[in-house]
């Protein structure tokens, strides 16, 4: 999985931004979403992303997994990532 061709990512103090340059839409990300996109950029798959987030964030494992997978599904639905 990786960011789609026309999607740019930049980290910010509040988290990050994804910019889909074909539609000129900007998506703002909180710190957890930013962490997910950072892992996508390293080439991780969904399973690896969940494992890494569980190591990093203190929320319950089920919550982290549910939120991360839901966010990735949202990225896919918006065509911001591609496999």
């Amino acid at each position: 999985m990786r960011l789609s061709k026309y999607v740019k990512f930049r980290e910010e103090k509040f988290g990050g931004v994804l910019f889909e340059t074909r539609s000129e839409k900007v998506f703002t990300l909180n710190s957890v979403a930013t962490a997910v996109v950072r892992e996508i950029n390293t080439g991780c798959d969904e399973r690896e992303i969940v494992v890494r987030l569980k190591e990093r964030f203190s929320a319950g494992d089920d919550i982290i997994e549910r939120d991360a997978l839901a966010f990735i599904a949202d990225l896919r639905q918006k065509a911001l990532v591609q496999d």
Partner: protein
Amino acid sequence: MTEHPAAAASQPLTAADSSVSTESSDLGAPLYVAWQVTNECNLACLHCIEESGPGKAFRDELNEEQIFNVLGQIMDHEIPYLSFSGGEPMVHPLFFKMVEYVCSRDGQLKIETNGHYLTPENCERMKKAGVKSVQVSLDGATSATFNRMRVRGNFDRATDGVRNLRAAGVPIEVNYSPTCFNVHEIGTAIDLAYELGAYSFYTGRTMYTGNAVKAWHKLQLTDEQYNTFFETLHRKTEEYRGRMRVHFHEMGLLEELRYRLHHPAALLIVLPNGLVKLINALPFVCGDLRRQSLSEIWANFQRAWQDPRVAQFIDDLSTDPGKTKTLHQWVYV
């Protein structure tokens, strides 16, 4: 994740929900730099906000060293989106060198052109470089309207240029400015853009700025014409949904500026001489890339929007629309 439609280019960064509330002031750098690389142009369009034309290059346009210094800063700041416009950007002697530099650093670059230099060879070169898209101005669906608007322009040359883009596989966008003499063609212009292979079509109200101030009597639309125009746009948006995006803003200039005053877009407008404007339709300059870094100018950008002269100018426009004649008499804030 909060979505901001067209936030960088023409809409504000406003949060639609509470997950992350952002304005452009929250960002460490702009999201979009719109760079007018030269004021020189092969055409002299009736409505040109920059009053570009043959022989209209600024005497102090950035030199090669300055240009690549600025481009380097843009890339170093990870500014995700950059456009080259003009004047006509393709007449700049360093045009392809600039394009190839930005693309080599993975920049997402849009070229805004009148389409007259889109030869097969140039289109291939842009494809090879990897430009994000080329936006061509097609203000009409026929030679009669296009050539009237685009003084010295040639409709067939521009549309052939778009066909060359398509043949080369370069993503195409089309821009259209309405006037009283071309507005009846808006529907067919959208159809033409789609037939030519565009994935986006942009339009909105033609602004009373630049050359348009002098030529307003030849351009001005009635409210009734605008009503029909926007009705057609709404209909065409639906007709082309999923095939080509039809983007348009119904806001007038004054309404837009009032909004921007409180919600500046994360956008810097760079003039050919390196001065940086708050927004195209105001005379205010918030920095000079010949003397200041991009970071310094971005830091000043938000403060400059709060300068009382900016709000006063916008207020004055409501009673004196002719103040837009002073857009090119820059005011440093």
